[in-house]
């Protein structure tokens, strides 16, 4: 008798219990999925804000073209730097006017100095790294001053750290709750089949033989529950995008990992439940 056949026998005998298990697992994982969706979108929003981290190096009034080019070459060579753009006084004025909208006429020509706009590579936008890069830029002879919105950057990173810590704690809590719910759900299946297990032991079935259909059962239920949770999360994403705010969804690799995690959780919950049961009989 194969484990697969036993699995189907179990599903056929107790279809409601099986359905209940799958739905319970699905909702437990749906909570994790929703949390993941929120975490993903907060992370993306922060990443978008982070992309705006920009260092501006103002050049000395009398800096020559050669000095400007040398300064640009030096800054471009830094490993942390993604892009360096030169902004002439006129371009700086135009940009300031664009950014200020209706107050655009408060500036007059020649008011702003020439500058270098420096964008940093991802991973080098934290306050400490930016401060180090700024110190090096300040040492360049043609550079008069360097600005990078230090307070704003530090606040952004504080927010990011708080979000990451809260995310970790909440994520672990949701995952733990899911594990407990899945464990309890699989335990119901084990208890429902306790008489069979007792007879199997009585007639000489090995623990491995008894365990196999339950492991397969947990794996399949975890996979089905995971799939259902993914579908529910997708609909939640659609609803939020339509009625509240545009949101991003998991990429296919993350979604597949979620499914595998569901299957693995089912497998582990089964293994623990049936293992505990077997130790008692």
């Amino acid at each position: 008798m194969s484990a697969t056949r036993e699995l189907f026998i179990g599903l056929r005998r107790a279809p409601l219990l099986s359905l209940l298990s799958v739905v319970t697992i699905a909702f437990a994982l749906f909570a994790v999925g929703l949390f993941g969706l929120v975490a993903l979108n907060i992370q993306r929003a922060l990443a978008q804000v982070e992309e705006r981290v920009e260092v501006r190096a103002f050049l000395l009034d009398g800096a020559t073209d050669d000095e400007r080019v040398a300064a640009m070459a030096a800054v471009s060579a830094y490993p942390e730097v993604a892009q360096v753009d030169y902004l002439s006084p006129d371009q700086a004025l135009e940009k300031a006017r664009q950014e200020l909208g209706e107050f655009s006429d408060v500036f007059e020509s020649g008011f702003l100095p020439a500058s270098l706009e420096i964008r940093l590579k991802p991973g080098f936008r934290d306050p400490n790294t930016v401060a180090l890069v700024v110190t090096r830029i300040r040492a360049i002879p043609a550079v008069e001053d360097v600005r990078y919105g230090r307070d704003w950057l530090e606040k952004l990173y504080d927010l990011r750290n708080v979000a990451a810590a809260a995310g970790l704690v909440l994520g672990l809590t949701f995952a733990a709750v899911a594990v407990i719910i899945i464990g309890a759900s699989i335990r119901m299946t084990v208890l429902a089949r306790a008489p069979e297990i007792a007879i199997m032991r009585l007639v000489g079935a090995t623990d491995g033989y008894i365990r196999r259909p339950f492991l397969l059962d947990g794996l399949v239920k975890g996979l089905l529950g995971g799939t259902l949770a993914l579908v529910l999360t997708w609909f939640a994403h659609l609803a939020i995008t339509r009625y509240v705010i545009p949101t991003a969804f998991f990429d296919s690799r993350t979604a597949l990992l979620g499914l595998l995690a569901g299957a693995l959780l089912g497998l582990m919950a089964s293994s623990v439940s049936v293992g505990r049961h077997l130790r008692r009989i």
Partner: protein
Amino acid sequence: MIRFTNVTKSYGRGTTALMDVSLFIAKGEFVFFSGASGAGKSTLLRHVYMDERPTAGEVRVGGYRSIEVSRRDVAKLRRKLGIVFQDFRLLEDRTAEANIAFALEVIGTPRSKIRDRVARALHQVGLSTKGTSMPGELSGGERQRVAIARAIVNDPFVLVADEPTGNLDDRASRGVFELLAEINARGTAVLMATHDLELIRRADFRTIELADGRVIHDSAGDGESLPLVENS
């Protein structure tokens, strides 16, 4: 074949179910275990199929020793034993045939052999025509026969029967006992725990009487006492 050497079984809170039990049961013997409720009959039988391990002493069944068997060994031992209970322990949602086949399936018997062996076991217990019946459709005696068929389908060398007639009326009890005696006549040792003194008196088999976890009497069917431990 089965040897208990100074077996004591204690549980927590000072309860002792077996106290210094020593006995030997030879191949093909029929042995009754008698005694009041709580005397230790069921505990003793559970030691035979190693559902329990002694707190002190040793049980040997076939080539298996209680002090060294693993869970896997216990599974292997049980494939050579048949076990029957008062409450039948049939799977209510399977036919009689399926209940018997289950015992073969879970130990990996090829499917091609299962059908014939189930039919043979059903024939042996006199239920050839009831194979497709569900347990709920059978009388108590018939249910116990199905349980016996499940126990013997694997040709065990020992059949352990814990109060197999406890839930049956006199006629069904006699039928079940006669069946066990037939099985014994074909060479399988039968260990039967029972309260039924009338049955013991009529049957003329070896009887081991227990009280408070101790063997207080061990006799052959002709009334002569047997040594508690084989002199070998």
